[in-house]
């Protein structure tokens, strides 16, 4: 069965690329545009991995990450934070609040695919 990737980002141009890439890799993909919608989507169906933007309206990525890690049922979900914040201290913050990996924009799409596959335990 195809692994399920949830994309959470409010910028449609990057969502277009991320959806395209994840579908190309054979994943089931669903996209939402803010943190509140993300929590609803996760409650409806638990994803294997979330590509989670940090700066979003109505609940940011840090808050989503913290809520997921506070609930044992969701501890196995892999989280890659995508952020336009380039400072080292923000990477430290993302990992401290429960992200499995942290990618700073701009990033290479194939590098992101490699990280997704590694976290999902697939060979690249």
């Amino acid at each position, binding site marked *: 069965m195809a692994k399920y990737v949830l994309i959470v980002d409010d910028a449609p141009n990057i969502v277009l690329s991320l959806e395209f890439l994840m579908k190309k890799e054979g994943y089931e993909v669903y996209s939402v545009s803010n943190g509140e919608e993300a929590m609803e989507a996760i409650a409806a169906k638990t994803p294997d991995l979330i590509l989670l933007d940090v700066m979003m309206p109505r609940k940011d990525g840090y808050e989503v990450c913290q809520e997921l890690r506070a609930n044992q049922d969701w501890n196995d979900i892999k989280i890659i934070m995508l952020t336009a*914040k380039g400072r080292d201290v923000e990477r430290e913050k993302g990992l401290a609040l429960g992200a499995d990996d942290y990618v700073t924009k701009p990033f*290479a799409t194939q590098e992101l695919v490699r990280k997704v596959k590694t976290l999902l335990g697939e060979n690249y």
Partner: protein
Amino acid sequence: MDRRALLKTLLQELKDGVIVCDPEAKIILFNPAAEDLLSRHQSLSCGKSLYDLCCRPPVEHALNLLAFQLDTKSRSKPLPVVQFVNTSLSQEQFFRCRISFLPPLNAAKKSFVIIFEDISAWYSPDNPLFMKIEEFRAPMTNLRAAVENLTEYPEMSPVMRSAFENVLVQESLNLTGAYDSLARSCNVLLQTQNHLTELNTEVLFGYVAHHLRTRKIAVTASPKRSITVKVDIYGLLLLLDYLVGRINKMLQKKNKTGLTCEAHIADNFIYFDLIWPGKYLASGAVGAMQEEKLEQSLGGMTVSSILHAMDGDIWSQQHDNSQSVLRLVLPVSTKAGQ
């Protein structure tokens, strides 16, 4: 050449304003540049208080820090000056200030010299250059992803190809706009140097502990080693006071006490951990705190803008089973090569 005459000439020719004050901050000597810089609203004259010309708290904090360094006889060599930002009383002008004591340093009350450089042309409490640079990241990402998809997957459908081509057009325009805005800012920012003071952690942790003790907060500091950190000492103390106040208020509502602080060093960062019994603060609550303007800050700075100026951040997380932490993180100084 006569040494006195030489010093007088140097002082006259300096572009920065130089003011010498007695221990009560009464002006005893100043150069013409100081008069040019500081007498827009108040005339500058000997015998007048320095605090009639500029904001008092940042100067007092800097003097306290200098005195603290001398009193503690730090193992590392004390810095001869403390650098900080100050404003005119009208808050129309911003200055980078450097302050140091005048000999004899063992006197109970010490005179001091303060140097003013006008940075109003480029200094903004909201740190706009940092934000402008960050504005590049999103359009660059979108552009790069679209280009990579177009080249990696040439067999894609015409509908997808058209969608990605549309992204190229939109994001090229966004990048052009971001570049124009950054270029305008750079014209005034090229002269910038930062206004932070470099302190070793031995002095910084000791001074923060000394400050928080006056707020009845116990501070433990990691004694392992000492590294250099760039700080806005006035902003940092305002920030700690604000965070301590907020957490204490939260604890009082729950009839709890027990807020403590731990200062320690990690690989690339230093941490000030405010620790209390109970649940951690949600990320959204910390985010809201970051937007708060601090009452005594210079130019209405927020928690977030003070943190950004020092390249720092805050967040809250579980500390152990029964305690939580609000962590204030600052990067170690890269200039020190550590």
